[in-house]
Structure formats: C-alpha cells, structure tokens
C-alpha cells in the first residue's frame, strides 16, 4: 500500500493575477460609484431645497420667468427694477416652457442640469467606447467625471454652465465624425448646430468652437474656412439681431459687463487646485495628447483638452471660479480613456506577435495595465473624496476613512471635501429651509417691493425681482451704471425690506441703504448669515 503525503495544489499564478486585477477593478469602480451615490444624495437634497443654494440660481430662474412672460432679459439697469441678465438667452429660453408649466421653481433647472451631466457622462462613455471598444477604459474615466469635486459642486444647480458644456461636447463629438464617408456632412452640420447652441448658452463655449474648427482645418482646410465664415455670419447675425431688438442692452449686459478685472493669483491658485484634484486623468490625457501630436494624427479631443486647459486662465476674472475648468475635466476624462484604450489595444496586438520576446513583453504590459489602471483610478477617487458626514449612508464611510468630525477650514462641519473650504457641496437641512421661509415671511409681510440680494425670497413672495447685484456691481465698476434712480428710491424708503448676504452692490447704493435702513434681524441659513433691514422711522 502506498502512502501519499498530503500536499496542497500549487496556486496558478495566472489565476491569482486575474483575481487580483478583478478585485482592484471592483474596488476602483466601487469607490467611484460611492462618489456617484454622494452626487445622487446631493441632487436629491437640492431638489427639495426651495431657495438659492448658489447666489445666481434665482436670477437664472427669473430670466426663464421673464421669457415665459414674453419679456426681454437684457434691460436698462438704471431703471426700476434695475435688473438684467449677463448671460446669452438659450438656457432660460429652454426652461421657460417648463417654468410656465410648473411655476417658478428651482427644481426644474436643477433637474435639467443634473440631466445634462448624465448626457455628458453618457457621451464620454460613448466616445471612448466607440474609439477603443474597451469597456473598462470607457467606464473608469466616465465615473471619474462624476467623481470630480467641481462637477459635483455645480452639477445639480439651476445654472447654465453644464448645459453649455453638454452642447460643446456634443459639438466636438460630432465634429470627430466629419470624415465618415457616408454621413460626414450630416455630422458636420450637427456639430455646427451644437456649437451654436453652446455659444448662445454661455460665452465660454469658445473652447469647443475653436477645437472643432481647428480640427476641421487640419483635416479639410478649405471646408473649415468656408464653413467657418458661414458659422461666423450666423453667429454675428443673431448677435446683431439681439442687440437691435434690445436697443443695445444685449451687448452692454453680456459683453461689456463681463469684462471684469483679472486677478492672476486667483487663476494660478485654481490651476494648482485643479491639477492637485485631477492629476491622474490630467496626466493620462496629456500622454494621449502627446501621442496624437507626435505618433498619430491630432484629434479633436486632444485639441479640446489643450484649449479647455488654456481657457481655465479665465477663472482669474472677478466673479469666476473653478467651474471654468469643467470642460477641461471632461476633455481630460476623454483623453485619459482614449489613451488607456489605445494602449491596451496595442498591447493586445503585440501579445499576438510571432516574435517571442515582444509577445512576452506585451503580456507583461497587459498584466501591468490590469493592475495599475484600477489603482490609478482608486487614487483619483481618493483625490476627489467629498461626502456629507452626518448622512446615514455616508457616515460609516467617513468613519472608516477616519475623517475628523470637526476641522477649522470647513464651510460647514457636516461636510468634508478634499477641496478644503468650499461653499458648495454640503446638504441643506430642514433648519435651512425653515430659515428661508422665515425670510420669505419678511418679504411677504412688508409693503411695497423688496430689495433682495437673492431672487428666491421675492419669487416665493410673489413680488418682482429687483436688482441683479453682481451685474450692477460690474457695470458700476466699469463706469456703465447710473445709480440716480435706485438711490432716489432708497432715499424715499420705497422698499419695504432689504435682504443682504454678501453686499455685492455698488458702494453708493450700499451707503444709501445704510443711511435709510436699519438691521432688524440676522438669519443664518445654509451656512450664510442673512441681514434683514427695515426702513428707519421718519424723523
């Protein structure tokens, strides 16, 4: 009888490696999906919050209200109600029918903006998958887009920025198909339409326009010049038409009022922060861009990335901020995904080569790709970490990651963000909503119009929105605002109540209010302190 010594089956190294690759990939996807869950929680919280979360939201809603009433949003700021918009008309025009249908509610635009981010994410996946046929290379950058702190902050706001990014991206993605032998011309026209929509959503869409036309010039110079002239004529005709129809207010409010002072330190600071938060996708996109410039053909996506990064310099303008980098983040995600997909496709081809050494090196490369790529995106998720600290779904993760409950540089202690100090991202509470209704009571129960730095209090009280503060401030600083009429009304104490948050008004206006109104209450809401002022008693 033969006795066999007990032994273990030797582990299959290939199987182990595959298991390790799968585990890392699942971990990276789980980390990014967690940040997507945080995005959903934030969106849900904002849909329930009926007041301005960001100071511009109510004004963009008011633009949609004015359009739904058949009124222009480019008006004389010197005359009552001292209100005009500084943005192009498309976004409020798109929302006007919904506002007419459901009433002036912030959730309409917030849901719209959230939807545009889903379209951007879907387009990102589609672009990368279409070019590389690599699901992992398409999925990880797509999730990284939603994980970005900047995208999270502004994604579900009633602001027009993500709508502009969506149209710009669609314009670029369709321009990439211009050489399609059957439908190239149709893609070109579609691209021009999207680019036009992007430009008339927000002026900053010039990066997508420039990238698309430069790409067309590289591939088909004659067509680029002809279509470029046609495009400029259409843009110019709409521009002139708007200016004539508004008696020059369009040019004054959207162009001259936006020429704010440039603060280089602010731009450099945001560049540093943007790079620090997105270094994985940025470096991968940079590698892809170099590959297209020196080893392959320049693509519309590499141009889009470079121009969008350059445009980020405009974040140094007074009133601008990190949101100006949203396009650069989208372009970086595309570049990262395309670069990774192209690399893996090349490695796979080499792994089938007849040359044994090359085959072996390629197989090693494929193993490294499977290990390093999930690790890189796990690191990217850590760089972007942001979460509410008190929500039952995210609190366990905060504890697991040992995030301190209190920190000195936070805007709100119930929210952590790798950005550090940020006024966006936290979830508003029931207490914030109660405080908002208390301010609305002030507006409702005082006679006459209200002078409010945020529009929602007036809108909920059923009163007309008076003033767009930063617009007045910008025009005043540029010497383009007559303040006589508004100061006369303040001196007459024509406004039943004044509500301040940041006091972004021209100094003479603030001075007049100080002389005629007294602070009667301070109301904390959403991390800010709102001052309620009432007319001083007549002497």
């Amino acid at each position, binding site marked *: 009888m033969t006795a066999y010594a007990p032994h273990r089956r030797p582990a299959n190294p290939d199987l182990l490696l595959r298991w390790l690759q799968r585990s890392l990939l699942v971990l990276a996807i789980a980390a990014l999906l967690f940040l997507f869950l945080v995005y959903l929680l934030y969106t849900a919280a904002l849909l329930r919050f009926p007041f301005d979360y960001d100071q511009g939201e109510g004004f963009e809603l008011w633009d949609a209200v004015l359009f739904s009433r058949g009124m222009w949003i480019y008006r004389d700021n010197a005359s009552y109600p001292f209100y005009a918009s500084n943005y192009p008309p498309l976004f409020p025009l798109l929302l006007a029918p919904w506002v007419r249908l459901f009433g002036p509610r912030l959730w309409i635009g917030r849901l719209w903006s959230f939807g545009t981010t889903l379209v951007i994410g879907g387009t990102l996946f589609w672009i990368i998958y279409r070019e590389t046929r690599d699901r992992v290379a398409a999925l990880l950058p797509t999730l990284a887009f939603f994980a970005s702190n900047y995208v999270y902050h502004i994604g579900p706001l009633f602001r027009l920025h993500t709508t502009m990014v969506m149209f710009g991206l669609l314009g670029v993605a369709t321009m990439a198909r211009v050489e399609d032998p059957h439908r190239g011309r149709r893609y070109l026209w579609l691209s021009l339409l999207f680019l036009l929509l992007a430009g008339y959503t927000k002026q900053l869409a010039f990066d997508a326009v420039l990238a698309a036309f430069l790409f067309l*010039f*590289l*591939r088909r*110079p004659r067509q680029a010049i002809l279509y470029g002239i046609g495009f400029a004529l259409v843009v110019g005709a709409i521009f002139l038409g708007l200016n004539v129809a508004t008696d020059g207010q369009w040019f004054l409010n959207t162009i001259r009022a936006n020429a704010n002072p440039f603060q*280089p*330190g602010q*731009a*450099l600071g945001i560049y540093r922060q943007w790079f620090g938060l997105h270094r994985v996708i940025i470096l991968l996109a940079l590698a892809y861009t170099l590959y297209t*410039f*020196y080893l392959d*053909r*320049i693509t519309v996506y590499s141009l889009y990335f470079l121009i969008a990064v*350059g445009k980020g310099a405009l974040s*140094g303008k007074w009133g601008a901020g990190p949101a100006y980098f949203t396009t650069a983040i989208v372009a970086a995600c595309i570049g990262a995904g395309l670069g990774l997909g192209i690399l893996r496709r090349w490695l796979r081809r080499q792994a089938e080569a007849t040359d044994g050494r090359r085959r072996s090196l390629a197989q090693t490369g494929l193993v490294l790709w499977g290990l390093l790529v999930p690790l890189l995106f796990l690191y990217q998720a850590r760089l972007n970490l942001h979460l509410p600290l008190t929500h039952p779904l995210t609190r366990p993760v905060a504890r697991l990651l040992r995030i301190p409950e209190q920190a000195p540089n936070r805007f709100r202690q119930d929210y952590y963000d790798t950005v550090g100090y940020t006024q966006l991202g936290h979830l508003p509470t029931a207490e914030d909503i109660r405080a908002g209704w208390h301010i609305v009571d002030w507006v409702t129960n005082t006679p006459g119009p209200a002078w409010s730095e945020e529009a929602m209090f007036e809108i909920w009280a059923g009163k007309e929105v008076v003033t767009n503060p930063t617009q007045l401030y910008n025009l005043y600083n540029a010497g383009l605002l007559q303040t006589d009429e508004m100061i006369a009304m303040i001196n007459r104490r024509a406004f039943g109540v004044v509500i301040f948050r940041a006091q972004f008004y021209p100094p003479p206006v603030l001075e007049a209010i100080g002389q005629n109104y007294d602070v009667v209450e301070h109301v904390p809401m959403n991390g800010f302190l709102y001052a309620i002022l009432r007319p001083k008693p007549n002497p």
Partner: protein
Amino acid sequence: MVTKRMAGIALVGLGLLIVVATIAVDLAGVGKWRGFGPSQRAAVAVGLAVLLAGAAMIPLGDRPA
C-alpha cells in the same frame, strides 16, 4: 491637407507670439503693475512650451497632422 511640419511651424509662430506679446506688455506699459509678475512668467513658460512642442513636430515632415 495640413502636415506635421506645417502644424509645427504654426505652433512655433504661436509660441513666439505669446513670448513676445508677454514681454511687450511691460515695454508698452500696459497693466496695473510694473515689473515681470508671476502671470507673465507663467505666460512666457506657456509660450516656450508651445514653441518647443512645435519645433519637435517639424522633423515629422509631410505626415498628415
């Protein structure tokens, strides 16, 4: 069709333009501050990077850009 060489020459031109314009800002006395500030240094660095990127493309010759 635009070639790599043409694109490289265009980038060299653009880089030179950025560098010269950034320096000329001081010579023309444009802007609030005197002296070569951090944003000018950044602009010159960008200009030089564009110039070098273009110069490296020129030897790629008649390959399509």
